[in-house]
């Protein structure tokens, strides 16, 4: 549609010919300086194409004379960050775990380092909150298979559990059923015995039948009273914490096939300072034994 440009009576200015609900738009000329600013910004844009990365091509993009690269900037800043972290790492290297924990500055630093390292490396199994899951220990409560002191945690981090590391912590729950070490009926009785240990009602006759077998087979790791032996990583069977579940069939399954997970050794992968920070982080979040 051809727009009819007419002249507005009041101002004597031409209109654009647009009309909305009887309102017509004046076509006042632009101020000259505004045009100059606009031309200037066009020149600026062209100059920007020349000096900065601008145009994508099929195989790459125009690099620009300044050779600017955001990735390079990030890399530079990360290097600077490493330098900064170096100072913190140096402090961690010389301080003992107890010193780190009791010094508010180092403690805060460890919390920061620990949180990010935990998220990257540990959360996969233990969960981002450290609460674990079936087969993966909860790091937030006060139950520790291999001890919950700062040194114990640090050592576990370094060598891992059944990790293949020469000093790895190793405990082995035998597969009493699968390897036919105990008859199936006895495994059923033993399940009742373990249920009884944790303070729940159980079949008294079965418990009585299983008691001598427990004393013979199980006390080495789980202790005469079933409270576990931390030195060998033997779980406490009397508390409310169950790595593989507390139901009868789950207990039965564990006695029958004796599962045990693997915790990697981190000593080669994380720097000693990072492991220290991580130990302090985990210890603090567990309430600190």
């Amino acid at each position, binding site marked *: 549609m051809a727009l009819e440009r007419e002249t507005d009576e009041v101002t*004597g200015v031409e209109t654009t010919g647009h009309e909305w609900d009887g309102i017509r738009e004046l076509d006042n000329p632009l101020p000259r300086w505004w045009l100059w600013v606009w031309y200037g910004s066009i020149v600026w844009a062209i100059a920007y194409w020349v000096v900065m990365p601008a145009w994508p091509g099929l195989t790459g993009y125009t690099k620009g004379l300044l050779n600017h690269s955001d990735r390079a900037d990030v890399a530079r800043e990360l290097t600077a960050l490493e330098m900064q972290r170096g100072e913190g790492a140096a402090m961690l290297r010389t301080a003992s775990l107890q010193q780190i924990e009791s010094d508010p500055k180092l403690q805060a630093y460890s919390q920061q380092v620990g949180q990010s390292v935990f998220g990257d490396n540990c959360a996969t199994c233990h969960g981002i*909150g450290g609460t674990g899951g079936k087969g993966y220990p909860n790091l937030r*409560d006060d139950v520790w298979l291999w001890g919950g002191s700062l040194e114990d945690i640090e050592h576990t981090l370094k060598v891992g559990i059944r990790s293949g590391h020469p000093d790895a912590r190793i405990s082995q729950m035998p597969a009493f059923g699968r390897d036919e070490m105990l008859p199936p009926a006895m495994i059923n009785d033993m399940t009742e015995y373990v249920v009884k240990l*944790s303070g729940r009602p159980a079949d008294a006759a079965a418990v009585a039948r299983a008691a001598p077998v427990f004393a013979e087979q199980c006390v080495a790791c789980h202790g005469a009273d079933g409270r576990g032996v931390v030195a060998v990583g033997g779980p406490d069977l009397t508390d409310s914490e169950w790595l593989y579940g507390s139901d009868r069939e789950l207990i039965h399954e564990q006695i029958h096939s004796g599962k045990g997970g693997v915790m990697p050794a981190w000593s080669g992968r994380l720097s000693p300072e990072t492991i220290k920070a991580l130990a302090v982080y985990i*210890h603090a979040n567990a309430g600190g034994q």
Partner: protein
Amino acid sequence: MPTLIDNTRKPKAGAAVSAAARAKGKGPVAGQLYKPRQQIYPKLVHGRWRTVKWALLIFTLAIYYITPWIRWTRPGDLPDQAVLVDFTGRRFYFFDIQLWPQEVYIFTGLMVAGALALFLVTALFGRLWCGYACPQTVWTDLYIVVERLFEGDRNARMRLDGQALSFDKAWRKTGKHLTWLGIAFGTGGAWIFYFHDAPTLIRTFWIGQGAITAYVSCALLTATTYVFAGWMREQVCIYMCPWPRIQGAMLDQHSLQVTYLRDRGEPRGAHKRGQTWEGRGDCIDCHQCVVVCPMGIDIRDGSQMECINCGLCVDACDDILSRIGRPTGLIAYDTDAAVAARACGQKAVYKPIRSRTIYYALALALVSGLTLWALIGRPDADLHVIRDRNPTFVRMHDGAVRDGYTLKIANRTFQDRTFDIAFDGVAGARLSQPGHPGQKVQVLVPADQVEAVRVFVTAPPDADRASSVPGRFIARSGEIQAEAKTVFLSGAANPR
């Protein structure tokens, strides 16, 4: 709704735009893409409103340049500057008031109150802000004073601009621009003192040791002051500033605006001494109102977007009227309603109290009141609680439940304080700090700082406890106390 008098300019046919109007850059230039700026040469005027403007110019500029130098003793190593925006320390100091970043809502309140005050003033008295108090107006006025000093008044300036370059013209122009740049630099310079300790900065600035932001801000404000007040002037108001366009929503027929009393002035025309005034208007078409106008408009065309309500044409016209022996007030602060009333032969009444101004005043009172209340009611200490969300709770080997919290304690006093932390709301709950089992939880918060601390709350096994129990943390240091509500979660009853 009373009908408004048609206060627009006299209808002109498009083709009949006068050559004079075209030369003044008023009318359209057919087929032209742009309109070059017409240099405006405001003539010096004396009178009531000009005096008010001089007073306000001195007053506002004095506030701007002097404020950073007012000293104010504060305890410790806090800065001894009365008004300071401390970005590095993340504090705003205003005499005895000290604001933290999290109190930015007080600035928000001030901004909203300022906007409402502007609405109210505009609804009552038109664009007084633009004509008297706007920095663009004030600095332009100051720059014109300098211009007048070097080049003379309107006619001399127009002559000078029309001359070929000579030594006389060169030194006047150079002197003017150098003085302008000096003022601009002083303006940018004054600005940066609001953000750093002024006496320190004025030393470090000259030896290149000021903050980079100081140099950048100073350069930027120097440039904008020089360009806006020296070169662009009315262009800023007409093309850059949104306020002239917004004002249409604030103004109504009862707002006082600079008005040419058409009923008294028309028909206009030259007047010889001794001629009768019968049958003609009081306007003698002397153009004094036009030559003094900083916006370069003719107020006799009626209310215009360009008009900043500065009243200089009122002074100019009154001056002429008193010389020709007519009563003053041909151009005056008046309302459209009054003009319309007089046109119908009724008595004009000024109505400052009307629904619009009542709403603005109430909103202004409310927002100012809330802001003041928020400012006065700020506590000396603040406590904020952030619950651990993963895990929400941890069950211990004996069935006890433990929740983790991060507390943030703000100490707004000027002394370092040790806060005792307590928790209540859950029967038998114990409060502890990771790594410090069995000790009372105490936090040292330095003066004027925030400190964060992680704590655990451990509750004994209790099958009857609700899965979520309300509780509260209390941080106490002497007579200062802060509280924060939270909840203690313990999930379902013990699954054993």
